[in-house]
């Protein structure tokens, strides 16, 4: 392939590049933690139907904390990247938002027409990651 895969994660200075590496590492670690916590919480809640509602709610929401940390780390990466990398990320994220909304609307409409089954909300974020990857690839092809 003729383009550089890391083009959308480049900083303009060596210090900036070190910060990008550190923050992307932190974001990946937090995303793994969030994914693990989501699975663990799902299993835990299945086995505890007698828990009070507040406890169930607290446990169910606990994976949101590492997810929030992951997005905070990703937002900080943006401050260190150079302008082409910011542009690549912007286009990848714009693709993610637009395609996700369109798919959500289309799926909802077909669900209403009883042509598609009800799906769990939790499938949305892996799908969004896949759409982001496609958006990132398109931006790389365009600029890098």
């Amino acid at each position, binding site marked *: 392939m003729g383009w550089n895969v890391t083009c959308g994660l480049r900083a303009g200075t060596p210090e900036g590049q070190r910060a990008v590496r550190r923050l992307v590492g932190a974001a990946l670690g937090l995303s793994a933690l969030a994914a693990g916590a989501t699975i663990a919480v799902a299993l835990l809640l299945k086995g505890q139907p007698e828990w009070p509602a507040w406890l169930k709610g607290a446990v169910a929401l606990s994976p949101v904390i590492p997810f929030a940390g992951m997005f905070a780390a990703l937002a900080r990466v943006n401050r260190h990247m*150079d302008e082409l990398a910011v542009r690549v990320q912007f286009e990848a994220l714009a693709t993610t938002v637009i395609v996700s909304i369109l798919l959500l609307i289309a799926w909802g409409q077909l669900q209403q027409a009883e042509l598609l089954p009800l799906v769990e909300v939790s499938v949305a974020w892996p799908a969004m990651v896949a759409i982001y990857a496609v958006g990132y690839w398109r931006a790389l092809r365009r*600029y890098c």
Partner: protein
Amino acid sequence: MENRLKVLRAERDWSQAELAERLGVSRQTVNAVETGKYDPSLPLAFKIARLFGQPIERIFDDRTHGNGENGGAA
């Protein structure tokens, strides 16, 4: 938008990496600007102009491809 960045860089015998370092951007950004895939932001265009000691309009020409199809930086 077309530009003379590659010519100006070659005149000084700088590599893309050297120019990128002087501008505080990545080598990929310099490459994308040189090949016309990406129009730099106004601050970066000013930085380039100052580095080469020339006015912006002598480096970048917006009349060649309309007003620039990729719309500049985010």
